[in-house]
């Protein structure tokens, strides 16, 4: 396939960022995270890999080199914050992240939606030694609601949704316990790629590892760059709903979002 050299070099820059991010994962967290990140790197550097893209009419577009992205499954992270888990009795729980992302090269530097497709799916599994009911599940996903899909329910373009049965086990046999499973609310949230997504998961589920990471200048720099490309368009577009004078703003942004860099 023929990818114009400037697009390929853009993709290789993204791959190189992921490589640096993977090295940081090795240095501060370990496990196999960097190895999974490496799969995304390979897809970005591979001249024969162009992700399919679904246009606003719902048609699948193949082989358009303006579209780049990656798809990685089963990135595993161990949960550190076990004492907050209920019911009691968990001494181990694991997060499994699947991410599928497609973006349009031409939109990347604009104040516009950075992605065309995003599925960021987090599954959590824990095994309770204290309890006969055994294996417990939880999950959530961050989806980009696609233009081609119609619904009479509110769908913010990027939204979080909780999943009681994230491994999609047979619903007739799945033990929902005393909880309810409802699709709504779809909570609006800024978009996240692999770098910002892992930052989100680590900051929430591995606080001591996160505190080490944010003392590393390279980590902070990477997060800062991706927030600039992915969150700034989101925040500015939202803020632009109202006119404002920036020097009148008193509320500190880091109080609203502590992971801002």
């Amino acid at each position, binding site marked *: 396939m023929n990818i114009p050299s400037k697009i390929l070099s853009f993709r290789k820059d993204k791959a190189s960022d992921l490589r640096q991010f*993977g090295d940081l994962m*090795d240095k501060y967290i*370990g496990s*196999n*995270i*960097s*190895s999974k990140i*490496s*799969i995304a*790197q*390979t*897809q970005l550097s*591979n001249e024969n*890999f162009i992700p399919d893209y679904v246009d606003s009419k719902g048609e699948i577009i193949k082989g358009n080199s303006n579209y780049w992205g990656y798809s990685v*499954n*089963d990135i595993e992270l161990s949960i550190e914050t076990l004492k907050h888990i209920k019911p009691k*009795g968990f*001494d*181990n*729980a*694991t997060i499994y992240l699947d991410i599928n992302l497609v973006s349009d090269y031409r939109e990347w530097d604009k104040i516009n939606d950075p992605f065309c497709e995003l599925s960021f799916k987090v599954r959590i*599994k*824990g*095994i309770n*030694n*204290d309890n006969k009911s*055994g*294996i417990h599940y939880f999950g959530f996903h961050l989806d980009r609601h696609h233009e081609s899909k119609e619904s009479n329910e509110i769908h913010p373009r990027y939204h979080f949704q909780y999943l009681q049965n994230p*491994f*999609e*086990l047979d619903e007739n046999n799945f033990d929902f316990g005393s909880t309810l499973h409802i699709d709504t609310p779809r909570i609006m949230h800024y978009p996240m790629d692999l770098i910002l997504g892992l930052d989100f998961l680590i900051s929430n589920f591995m606080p001591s590892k996160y505190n080490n990471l944010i003392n590393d200048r390279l980590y902070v720099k990477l997060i800062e760059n991706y927030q600039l490309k992915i969150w700034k368009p989101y925040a500015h577009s939202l803020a632009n709903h109202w006119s404002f004078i920036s020097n009148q703003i008193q509320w500190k942004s880091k109080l609203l979002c502590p992971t801002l860099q």
Partner: protein
Amino acid sequence: MNKPKYLYIDDENGASEKSTINLFNDLGIIEVELFNLSEFREFGKLRNELIQRRKNNAFDGVIIDLRLDGDGADRVDFNATSITQELRSITARGEIKSFPIVLCSTEEKIKNTYDTDKSSHDLFDYKFEKSINPDSKKFSKKLFSLVKGYDLLNSEKLTPDTIFRGIDTNSFDQRIIERFDESNNLVVYDYAHFVVKNLFHNTNPLLKDRLVAARLGIDKDASGKNWFTLLENIFIPAKYSGVFADGWDRWWADSVVNIFKELTGKRLSFLKAEERVNLLIKMTGITGLVTATPIKHCQSTEFWTICEAYKKPLDPLEGFKIFSTTELKPWQESKYLSFDAIVERVGIEKGLRPNPTEKDRIESVKQTLEKK
């Protein structure tokens, strides 16, 4: 190919050494010749003799006793590590063709010397323990394969395809492939060492058959020949076919998952063992496959690994990481022990023990079980 010939270098040449040699020779897969160390007790002499013999194609590989400086009649002033180090350097410079060097010693000596001297682990292609009744069939198979593989590596242009043989490596950690870049000037031994030590002895990207069985939810032992029917018919495209494949049976982890997905349309890791096996039976018609059940004190059947002590399927979430003398690469998966194996001290004589970082969790599970 002719029967590969190994030189057996040992400072002891008593009955036990001779019977080990006879066991190999009687089996007839490889030929083993006792090297007369008494004539070459100086380091330089031994080195030169081996170089000369290798130049004359008088042997294909070396089996060497760890403690040449032990109590034997032909004792010398150096041990296997130093002469092996020297031979590796000479072959790396291309003076003679590279050949396999296999360590052999008593369990006790390996524990006292080899296990504490980690720097020597990289030197040998394989190690086996001297015992009254060594598994000569297994060792012959490995030693035969090592010679065949070294021959291949010596004669072919070294490329990653010697290992990967057309497997799609795009789903691999790039660092696995990058090490084979031409600019790294790799020699034959680097290839051999990488394949045996990094690929065969670790989990991911290759799996042993028990790991494949665990991931498919199958009780290998209870399934008998049906297991092999499944493995050799349905999962054969996942089988490792690169260099040394005839000595070590391994399967590519990604291919196993992909074949299952193509066969059933389902993602393997999400299913419970019963669902995995039911789908396999439905799609292949191999009805005798038996679903694996959890080890005592375990609940999950979402198996992905095995307990190294019991060799039975285990969900890593319920397992405890094993202590390993070598540091894992980021693309290698940890090995595990089950809680029951830890408290029953199964495999402790083989050095199977949990990683010290698992101590708190083990205590916590103990307390929970005591309360019951």
